[in-house]
């Protein structure tokens, strides 16, 4: 098994020359962080420039990866494999496939935008350093193919994020940052025990110690290697960690606080990328490693997702704070991702992945726009706004566009993702899909209601004579909305690259379990999503 996995990867990596692009993706922001750190504190613009350059270089590398990535190859590409902690069998294994590709691209896209949006932030040097460290850790999360390396990155993400929230957040930042750190760390505790157990079980079966995801996945998913109960326990241990990150319904309470109190760039990254670490974890680890348990226990996660969709929407509608509203809407959006994922159909998982990308773009744009409003009015209370359409027409127009994108209006990426996810779910879990679909309507309700209260009518008091959007601010929002629009009309570039990995995953689940996705579905639905 090991030989098969490594030889397959060797073929893939051999085709792409020797430039370690994945390591470069991790190291570039880190190098930038070190460089920014040694810049003089008295000249903060130096650090800021280093930040722009480093994130732009990372974005360039990510684009190179997107172009070089082969949409027809199955398995991981650009694999790098080196020894790291030999004593424990921990290796430095990186690789990218359709599932992780767009997460890396999204990360690389959101960071320069986040930095650009934070040009006026206090203590820019420290802010830049933490942002770059965070980017490096996040890229490492999505590229790691070694469980311990993944865990290292997964946990380490907390540190820069903690300091970003605690250092640059709003009024209640310390409480929010601490809650965020402890919640996610508590979740990771189970993941840590789980991954150690997997490695030890594999070792006990007479194999050399390894944490290589490919080897372990092949072993744990094969029938008869681990008992049903052990598989379920391990699956749940993994799931708790990822469910906290997503966050799934009962584990979500850290999210509104963290999102609301974080600085704008922090919220963008938090919603855009950090939450996806959870859904990515399901797709990369929990489902392929324990497919039988995933099939058996899927209803738990599906119910949780549906509750999240409905509950997130209802609570969002009640929020007086615009940022908190969007935070709750994230719970609903991520609910669609989990729903599609645990439908375990090609369409569902593709839809989930697409929603992950789309949510990163649209929610990122929304947080940026809310940040701009909050900079101008020093409040985020919907009741304090009113008539903004007349005082800041361009900003208001973009806000409404972002709202439509977030609702999932056809033509925006949100529609493609949620549509695919719901179709995928409908095939296997009809009633879940039916109930979840009402969430789409709720989304329209809470967002449009907020838009109506904040933007329509006549501006009064401080809402009169606000400065409209600046060029720099425009440069942060337009790429996100533009991409959302582009992918809404033409999702093919994403879906094509995602498909092999998703097909592999679904085939893997079907081969290793008694589960079969109904075959009637596969033709019609996928062409619907990718015209």
């Amino acid at each position, binding site marked *: 098994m090991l030989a098969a996995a490594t030889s397959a990867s060797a073929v893939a990596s051999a085709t792409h020359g020797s430039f370690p692009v994945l390591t470069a993706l991790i190291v570039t922001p880190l190098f930038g962080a070190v460089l920014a750190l040694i810049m003089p504190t008295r000249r903060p613009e130096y650090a800021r420039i280093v930040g722009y350059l480093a994130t732009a270089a990372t974005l360039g590398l990510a684009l190179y990866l997107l172009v070089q990535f082969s949409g027809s190859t199955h398995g991981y590409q650009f694999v790098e494999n080196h020894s790291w*902690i*030999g*004593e*424990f069998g921990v290796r430095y294994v990186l690789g990218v496939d359709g599932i992780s590709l767009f997460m890396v691209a999204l990360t690389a896209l959101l960071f320069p935008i986040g930095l650009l949006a934070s040009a006026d932030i206090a203590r820019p040097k420290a802010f830049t350093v933490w942002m770059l460290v965070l980017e490096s850790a996040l890229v490492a999360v999505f590229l790691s193919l070694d469980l*311990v390396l993944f*865990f*290292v*990155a997964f*946990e*380490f993400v*907390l*540190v820069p994020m*903690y*300091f970003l929230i*605690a*250092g640059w957040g709003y009024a209640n*930042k*310390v409480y929010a*940052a*601490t809650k965020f*750190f*402890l919640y996610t*760390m*508590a979740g990771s*505790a*189970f993941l*840590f*025990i789980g991954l*150690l*157990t997997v*490695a*030890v079980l594999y*070792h006990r079966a007479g194999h050399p110690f390894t944490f290589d995801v490919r080897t372990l996945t092949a072993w744990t998913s094969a029938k008869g290697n681990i008992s049903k109960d052990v598989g379920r326990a391990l699956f749940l241990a993994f799931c708790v960690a990822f469910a906290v990150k997503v966050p799934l319904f009962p584990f979500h309470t850290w999210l509104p606080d963290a999102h609301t109190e974080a600085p704008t760039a922090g919220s963008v990254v938090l919603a855009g990328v950090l939450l996806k670490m959870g859904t990515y974890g399901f797709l990369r680890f929990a489902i392929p490693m324990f497919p039988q348990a995933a099939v058996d226990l899927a209803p738990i996660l599906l119910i949780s997702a549906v509750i999240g969709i409905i509950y997130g929407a209802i609570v969002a509608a009640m929020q007086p704070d615009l940022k908190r509203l969007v935070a709750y809407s994230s719970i609903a959006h991520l609910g669609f991702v989990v729903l599609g994922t645990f439908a375990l159909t090609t369409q569902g998982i593709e839809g989930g992945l697409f929603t992950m990308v789309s949510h990163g773009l649209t929610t990122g744009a929304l947080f940026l726009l809310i940040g701009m409003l909050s900079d101008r009015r020093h409040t985020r209370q919907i009741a304090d706004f009113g008539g903004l359409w007349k005082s800041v027409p361009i900003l208001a127009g973009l806000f409404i566009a972002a709202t439509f994108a977030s609702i999932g209006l056809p033509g925006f990426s949100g529609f493609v993702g949620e549509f695919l996810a719901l179709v995928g779910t409908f095939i296997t879990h009809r009633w879940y899909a039916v109930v979840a679909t009402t969430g789409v309507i709720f989304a329209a309700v809470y967002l449009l209601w907020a838009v109506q209260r904040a933007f329509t009518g006549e501006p009064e008091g401080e809402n009169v004579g606000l400065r409209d959007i600046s060029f720099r601010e425009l440069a942060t929002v337009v790429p996100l909305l533009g991409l959302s629009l582009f992918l809404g009309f033409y999702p093919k570039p994403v879906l094509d690259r995602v498909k092999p990995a998703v097909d592999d995953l679904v085939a893997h689940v079907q081969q290793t379990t008694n589960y079969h996705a109904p075959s009637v579905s596969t033709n019609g639905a996928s062409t619907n999503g990718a015209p």
Partner: protein
Amino acid sequence: MNAFLALSSAPTRPLAVPPVDWVSIAPELCLFGAALAIVMLRALVRRSPRVFDFSVVIGVVGIVASGVCTAVVWHVVHDNGPYQAIKGMVAVDGFSVFVRTVVLIATFLALLLSVGYLKREALDGPEYLALMLLSATGMMVMASANDLIVVFLALEILSIALYVLAAFDRRRLESQEAGLKYFVLGAFSSAIFLYGIALTYGATGTTSLTGIAQFLAANHVGHPGVLVAGFAFLLVGLGFKVAAAPFHMWTPDVYQGAPTPVTAFMASATKVAAFAAFLRIFVGTFPLYGVDWRPAVWGLAIASLVVGTVAALVQTNVKRMLAYSSISHAGFVLIGVQVATRSGTSAALFYLFVYAFMAIGAFAVIGAVARKGDARHDLEEYRGLAGRQPLLAGVLTVCLLAQAGVPLTGGFVAKLGIFKAAVDVGQYPLALVAMLASVVGAFVYLRIVVTMYGGGESANPADGVVPVDLATRAVLAVVVSAIILVGILPGVVLDFARDATLLLVGAR
């Protein structure tokens, strides 16, 4: 009458002096020599104001020489394999070399911390340095002791010097209290330990650890009551020294009261030495009776984790907070002891290695922030520290995050080793409790970090920038580099810890 004659004639036999393998005890002799030299210097040159500075130099030279000798011993072990010296009293093996190395590093760093501290507090007596070196000598002996009597001697050498060190800041009531408390409870635990030795001797007929292991392997102990009682007493005595709950009652008071560099020394070096004895006696000598002692250590580990973490939660005094956290770290190391495997032993050693740096770094910052008088340990003193002194706050943050087990610090690799060892033998409950303890522990450390970084100025207007002397800066730099380096490239130390196997690693 005849009997008396027979008795009195017995000593006429020439006393058999075992051949002394000087290499095996050279590291201890270097330290001991340095301590004696300092005492002599003090006795002979009373008036010179330079005595203290000379003493520092002597101390550093002694530690470096001891380090060189340890390296030589390592080469001997590496080339010829582990052996016993001086009639089986001393074990020369990778384990003792590793422990000695950690003790030396910790002593060196604590000594550097002490220099600035003693000058600041106007306590700069060379006696302090001599006592610290003597205590370190005891720890070094402990690392290689292969006989229960030698273990006891080492325990006393290290403890008696520490009692005095704890009370060294004699003008501070807390320091006096710490010394007295440590002395009374320490003496009590030594007595219990000695009783344990007696019972073990009664059950096996020897005090040599090798001899005991061989006896237990060759004979079936029909009524193991005496032996098990011996285990129990040894366990209590050692549990006291490593500050494991429920024998931890002295720890918060003594750690808080003792001069801060002494606290750093106790948390790092003493812990390592005491755990060395723990591992050598229980894992190395009694592996066959694991059924009897492992459940007890299991209980100690859980109790230490829970008590240490939960009690740390409610503290507002940072020094006391870290004293409790050191109890929970003892719990982590005890997991490595409890599993009683090779990987457990090396995981415990690695943990102790990393913890030595984390503890010294944290206490170094605490000592600096406390300012003259060594009394300002309240959490409020740290408010806004990151704004006033970002480097100092940064060092403390790294040390605390490492203690919380955050990846890319040595603390993570250390915890990884411990958890792996526990999961390896199927100790899932232990692993889970430890994992939850580290989450709750993270909250404790974050509280300090939050106070430093979360804005707001200190309520005390007298606050300014706290002075940090050069030696302390050096210590901080070393500590942070070590923590991060070990976190990213742990290979070298892990290999060292893996080779640090006990002379008698038992059954498994």
